[in-house]
């Protein structure tokens, strides 16, 4: 094959050689024949006859050199390139269209692939499953999603007939001191068999084993991630065997994990791995990891040959027995008979997890598919545009094509020539798209970590081009090539040889109908994108207009976590009070307060509650809870609507825990109390016969956002500093420029403890922005994509209308000569455009309706079929389209009758 291809490039030499060879043959034959007595002409005739035609032999030999289709293709290629070179504006427009389409699609696909599709770089990832609990939980959890207890993971690991192994893991922020400074990093707390089940080796030293996960606190060892070792420890060769401080506890580094392995969460990459037996050190205040608390994700590797379904059904009898056993455990909570029944009905659910477990994936799965669909439509529009351009070129070349047909070119051959053209354009566009995509991906990758509560965790996302992405881009380009070539190729088959030769150039209407259909389709598709963008912009707008319910001007926040830095609860509590006091005294401070949990991070402390009114009320859903210092509501500008604010009565000395008073929000009152007066009622966390309401509601506050702007849950706030709080988020209303205040605050905290890291130190407006990351992403990207779509379809419309005007110049000229008005010439052209726009919109509306249901969950305060949004979108689209059609129409009215009639 290669040699045959090489023949193409030395074909001139081959031709010359063949020519000489055949000539030699003929001359020798003629000479021989003459010697046998034939006349010169007779000999010549006979020799040629014997050979069977010189040209035929040459052609047959050429087929040996390179097969027919390949030779044809090479000729097509050369012809295409030459014709593109001669029509630069056509080529540039077509290539740019596809570059936009392929570039945008590839960029989004890069994220889709990395976040949603890419399997972990571990052994046989296809056998990994996530094991989750379906049914009633009786014990609270902390962490992200799919939470299970550590003992359950141990039990599952023993079910060897189903699993090769089952491991569990949980991400937690820790403070790590390596060679000097303490730095906040993310740790993955894992069961001892984690690396072994995943099949991940060490790059240096060794990885964790089950022996490291023995008695609680007995094995102070950690494994470093390769990236952390390289970037933060400068690849120090002697790090294995050294002791680092994890939350002030000395831990020995036993190894560095393999370079390619970045944990099982693409969105949050751990810097270190800690055995679960050391969870007391990694998660301060967490004592009982062997209890029922749910805090880890459990994943397993199915035994070879075991299907997910077999394992899931096979596990249930064992699981039921386990549940019945659990009920008799001494630490099993006391619950109502009904909840016990629900609990016993729980089951295990297995889902495939070759991509691991990721909260980023959970957040992005819908937005990314929406955006991928949008870019798909954009690519489709680009293809239609190129198609339309080809048709326009085809009409201009009508006579040439007619001539080629008349000379005996087959229609199939002509169609193939057109497809070759479109593939070349598509590949050129695709290659350019490949170069632009990484730029867009880099911007988005830099933006995405804001979706996660612990913004400091690095992620495994990259903007590079790997083989999978390359394959995708090439496939997308080839599909685009086929898609944009198919209409013109089909059109070319319908050529009538006679009409195209008979008609004079410039009057043929070939391809016009197809081009109008294409433009109509473009208008319809563009409408869906414009409406989609309008919906996302409205959503973002509605959320911004709603606001968090408190005043973010000059407000900065930061967290300190005493328990991660070696403070006992009582010491930590004293330290926080000291920092609080100093910040209040500082001249930059207008007001300052503390909350136990930060606002607008997507997470919250939550629990169902029991309310003691004239009867016991149990809330059916979770109430979001927090604890704040007196002065919090004033600092944030949150109004107290009834009762009293927290004051010094609510503050208790360190080491005296217990909740005494609470302030609830309006929603809490409206949703759970059905018109009762909330003041004086007693509440408590949790439900069931054991819940003893003993906290008095002393006030009602206006609603504001805690988890995020979309939140509409009931809230109850308790006083902070009642007891043992040792970690806190400070909210400080500063005077003057917040950015200068940041350095003053940093200095204050340094003054109290030199080594204490400030976590998530930023202005609250920035935090608010971050909480809207998904919405920003969707609004910005869909708006830019729909703007591109608009440009593409306007170019299409403009092209078709210009063509119409050129073709009808003579007709318009005659009409004008016969006394028609200028405006009637405009109308003549515009009427065509209006028909396309109206039909396009009519087709687009049902599409809008269908797509609207897909994006509904991403919207806020706007319906997918909102009439105003749709009307405005139609208005934008229609007015832009009419403007695009107006320019050629104006030109029609400017036709000079005498000129038009003379043109021929």
């Amino acid at each position: 094959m290669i040699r045959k291809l090489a023949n193409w490039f030395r074909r001139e030499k081959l031709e010359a050689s063949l020519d000489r060879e055949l000539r030699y043959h003929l001359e020798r034959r003629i000479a021989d024949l003459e010697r046998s007595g034939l006349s010169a002409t007779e000999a010549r005739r006979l020799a040629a006859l014997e050979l069977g035609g010189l040209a035929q032999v040459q052609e047959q030999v050429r087929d040996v050199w390179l097969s027919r289709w390949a030779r044809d293709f090479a000729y097509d290629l050369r012809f295409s390139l030459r014709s593109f070179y001669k029509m630069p504006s056509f080529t540039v427009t077509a290539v740019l269209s596809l570059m936009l389409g392929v570039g945008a699609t590839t960029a989004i696909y890069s994220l889709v692939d990395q976040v949603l599709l890419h399997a972990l770089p571990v052994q046989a990832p296809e056998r990994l499953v996530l094991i989750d609990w379906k049914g009633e939980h009786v014990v609270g959890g902390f962490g992200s999603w799919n939470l299970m207890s550590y003992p359950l993971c141990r039990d599952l690991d023993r079910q060897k007939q189903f699993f090769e192994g089952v491991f569990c893991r949980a991400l937690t922020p820790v403070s790590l001191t390596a060679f000097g400074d303490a730095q906040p990093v993310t740790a993955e707390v894992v069961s001892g068999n984690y690396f072994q089940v995943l099949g991940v080796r060490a790059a240096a030293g060794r990885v964790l084993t089950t022996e490291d996960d023995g008695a609680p606190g007995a094995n102070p060892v950690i494994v470093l991630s390769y990236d952390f070792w390289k970037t933060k420890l400068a690849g120090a060769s002697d790090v294995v065997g050294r002791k680092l401080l994890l939350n002030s506890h000395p831990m020995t580094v036993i190894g560095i994990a393999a370079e390619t392995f970045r944990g099982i969460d693409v969105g949050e990459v751990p810097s270190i791995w800690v055995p679960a037996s050391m969870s007391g050190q990694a998660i301060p205040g967490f004592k009982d990891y062997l209890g029922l608390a749910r805090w880890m994700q459990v994943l397993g590797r199915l035994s070879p040959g075991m299907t997910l379904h077999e394992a899931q059904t096979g596990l249930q009898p064992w699981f039921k027995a386990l549940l019945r056993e659990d009920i008799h455990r001494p630490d099993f909570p006391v619950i109502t008979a009904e909840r016990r029944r629900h609990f016993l009905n729980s089951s295990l659910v297995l889902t495939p997890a070759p991509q691991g477990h990721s909260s980023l994936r959970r957040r992005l799965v819908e937005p990314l598919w929406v955006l991928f669909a949008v870019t798909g439509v954009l690519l489709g529009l680009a293809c239609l545009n190129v198609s339309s351009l080809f048709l326009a070129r085809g009409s201009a070349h009508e006579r040439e094509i007619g001539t080629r047909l008349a000379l005996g070119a087959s229609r199939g051959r002509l169609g193939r020539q057109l497809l070759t053209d479109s593939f070349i354009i598509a590949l050129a566009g695709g290659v350019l798209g490949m170069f632009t995509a990484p730029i867009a991906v880099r911007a988005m990758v830099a933006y995405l970590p804001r979706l996660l509560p612990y913004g400091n965790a690095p992620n495994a996302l990259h903007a590079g081009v790997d083989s999978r992405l390359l394959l995708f881009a090439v496939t997308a380009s080839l599909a685009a090539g086929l898609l944009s070539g198919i209409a013109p190729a089909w059109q070319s088959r319908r050529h009538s040889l006679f009409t195209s030769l008979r008609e004079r150039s410039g009057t043929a209407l070939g391809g016009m109908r197809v081009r109008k259909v294409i433009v109509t389709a473009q208008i319809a598709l563009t409408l869906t994108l414009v409406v989609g963008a309008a919906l996302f912009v409205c959503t973002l707008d509605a959320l911004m207009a709603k606001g968090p319910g408190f005043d973010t001007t000059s407000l900065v926040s930061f967290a300190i976590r005493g328990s991660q830095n070696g403070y006992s609860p009582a010491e930590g509590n004293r330290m926080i009070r000291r920092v609080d006091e100093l910040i209040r005294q500082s001249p930059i401070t207008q007001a300052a307060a503390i909350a136990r949990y930060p606002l607008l991070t997507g997470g919250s402390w939550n629990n169902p509650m029991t309310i003691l009114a004239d009867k016991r009320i149990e809330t059916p859903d979770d109430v979001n809870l927090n604890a704040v210092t007196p002065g919090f509501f004033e600092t944030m500008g949150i109004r107290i609507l009834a009762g009293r604010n927290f004051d010094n009565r609510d503050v208790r000395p360190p080491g005296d825990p217990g909740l005494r008073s609470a302030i609830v929000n309006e929603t809490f009152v409206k949703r759970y109390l059905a018109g009762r007066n909330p003041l004086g009622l007693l509440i408590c966390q949790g439900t069931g016969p054991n819940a003893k309401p003993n906290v008095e509601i002393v006030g009602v506050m206006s609603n504001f956002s805690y988890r995020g702007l979309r939140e509409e849950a009931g809230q109850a706030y308790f006083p902070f500093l009642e007891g043992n709080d040792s970690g806190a988020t400070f909210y400080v209303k500063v005077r003057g420029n917040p950015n200068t205040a940041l350095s003053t605050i940093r200095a204050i905290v340094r003054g109290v403890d030199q080594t204490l890291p400030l976590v998530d130190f930023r202005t609250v407006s920035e935090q608010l922005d971050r909480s809207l990351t998904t919405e920003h992403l969707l609004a910005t990207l869909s708006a830019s994509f729909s703007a591109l779509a608009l440009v593409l379809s306007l170019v299409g419309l403009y092209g078709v209308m210009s063509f119409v005007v050129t073709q009808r110049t003579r007709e318009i000229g005659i009409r004008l000569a016969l006394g028609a008005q200028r405006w009637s010439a405009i109308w003549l052209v515009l009427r065509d455009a209006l028909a396309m726009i109206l039909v396009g919109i009519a087709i687009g509306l049902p599409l809008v309706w269908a797509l609207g249901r897909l994006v509904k969950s991403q919207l806020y305060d706007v319906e997918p079929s909102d009439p105003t949004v749709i009307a405005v979108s139609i208005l934008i689209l229609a007015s832009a389209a009419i403007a695009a059609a107006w320019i050629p129409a104006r030109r029609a009215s400017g036709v000079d009758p005498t000129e038009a009639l003379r043109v021929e």
Partner: protein
Amino acid sequence: MLILQVVSLEPAHGYGIAQRLDQISRSVVQANQGSLYPALHRLEQKGWLRGEWKQSETGREAKFYSLTAAGRKQLAIEKDSWARLAGAVQLIFNEGGR
């Protein structure tokens, strides 16, 4: 196979090969001269023949084909398989004749 056999005796040019084929087969095998050249080029493409421009017997430059090592091997294979086929046919005829 015939071409390979002819060339295996001595390097020859296209016309010469055509002549030899004509002679050897005593005009039983009527090879069309026109199909000779595609065949020669196919064999050259496969690497069984090598073509060189040399002085011919008439003093003019002609393209002489000679057998390559791979061509020699191929010829042996084909001869062998032909011999077996011919032998088998012979056996069948003998059987029928008795």
